[in-house]
């Protein structure tokens, strides 16, 4: 499907989606409460058939924390970027997508490790890279480490 067709299809499902096209692919922003149901529809809908999750990026947007999920359909080769933001920086929590796309399993562990976002329903959230004793979440913008970081 083209970007326009995708937009029309998705707006029919939810009315609070925000579409942006600045950049490479079509970007859709969804509220955290609709994330999992939208993801399920994106995968199971025969016209969308997004079965290949190829990039899972945690982002510190400044005020909010969030994830950007790149999805592709191997049948139709259309690509969509799913963005979700949560404004709770103290105890951020999002739904886990690993049951829909198993590829998200390790990726969510990585996002948890670097951004501190907890994923509801993820069975094995642990600090994959930094180790359990590490304090803080290094890829957040407000992370300070006077020993290991040089800010120019």
């Amino acid at each position, binding site marked *: 499907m083209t970007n326009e067709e995708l937009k029309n299809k998705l707006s029919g499902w939810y009315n609070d989606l925000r579409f942006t096209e600045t950049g490479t692919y079509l970007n859709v922003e969804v509220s955290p409460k609709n994330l999992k149901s939208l993801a399920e529809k994106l995968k199971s809908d025969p016209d969308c058939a997004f079965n290949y999750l190829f990039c899972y990026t945690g982002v510190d947007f400044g005020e909010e924390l969030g994830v950007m999920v790149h999805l592709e359909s*191997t049948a139709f080769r259309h690509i969509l970027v799913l963005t979700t933001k949560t404004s709770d920086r103290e105890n951020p929590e999002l739904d886990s997508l690993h049951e829909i796309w198993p590829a998200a399993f390790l990726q969510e562990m990585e996002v948890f490790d670097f951004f501190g976002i907890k994923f509801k329903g993820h069975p094995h959230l642990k600090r994959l890279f930094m180790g359990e004793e590490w304090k803080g979440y290094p890829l957040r913008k407000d992370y300070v480490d006077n020993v290991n*970081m040089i800010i120019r």
Partner: protein
Amino acid sequence: MGEFLTDNIKTQEYFLNMGPQHPATHGVLRLLLQLNGEIVENIDMDLGYVHRSIEKMCEHDTYQQIIHLTDRLDYLSSHMNNEAVALAVEKGLGIEVPDRVKVIRTMMSELTRFASHALWYGVNAMDIGAITPFMYGFRERELINDIMEETCGARLTMNYNKVGGVRYDLHPNFQKKVKDFIKHARKKLPDYDAVLSNNIIFKKRMKNVGFIDKDNAVLYGLSGPTARGSGVSCDVRKVHPYSAYDRVQFNEITFTEGDSYARYRVRIREMWESLSILEQLVDNIPEGDYKVKTKAVLKLPEGSYYQKVESARGEFGVHILSRGDKLPYRVKFRSPNFANLSALNKMAKGVKIADVVAILSSIDIVVPDIDR
């Protein structure tokens, strides 16, 4: 005697540490194998032994400066990693590079792919227990490293791409050396098959080991030869062509068996395809500039940019979030090795300990790319 040898015998579950210093993990990867006797029940991973936080470092560097950091991700596909960043920034800024640059980039990518596959062929065989293929693989790789050294100034971390082109023009010897190499490799590649592909011990170690079916391969986010061994058509060079891949003829290699041996055969056939791509381009390098002039300070317009390329291990992607500044707001490297590793648990469930080594080497991991 017979009554003891039933499948019902269960031993006490125990854990075995594989790595971080294990020759078959190709670096410092630590796996915790949960075992029942010699059967693997589950694999837990402990990563980060070579984590350098390259993504965080990128947030403090300009777009020109981050390219050399990507050499240090998958050091065997350094050219493709460089290319991905260069292409992403060029696309975002609307810079059109000359044809000569596209062809040079394509040729360098294929040389890198051949070198990477040749190295993999050697170490894969060594993991299984054969020594001779290691010498074969490194012999061919050395010739490519020499070609790289002449043109790029480095053998491994080439840092040859830049935004708007490549850093230096081709060395006058380049065409002759590539032609010599193609001739040499065409003569030597049949040896690869003769010494290993039909070896009965090798086949028994690789066949029906580490099976993953086509649907799961996609769902687990596999890419590259690992996915193509399961019959997934996922070659970025075919699906989303970049550089000069739309003007060369080559086949996408897929096998449907989905086991370690299928992945092995994909890579062997891909070496032939790389040679064929090189042969088509070596006499058709267009004349012209090897770079275009760009502004001294590059500022990507606000937005989210993504570029995927086919590295030797699969789909390498660069995701750049820009806020219109000269520094990127967030850079994420989509590492093919990290994605491929997520299927290890699925592939290795129920196999013997020794097979984990075969599976790991058949998905061809490079640890610095996993840890980033």
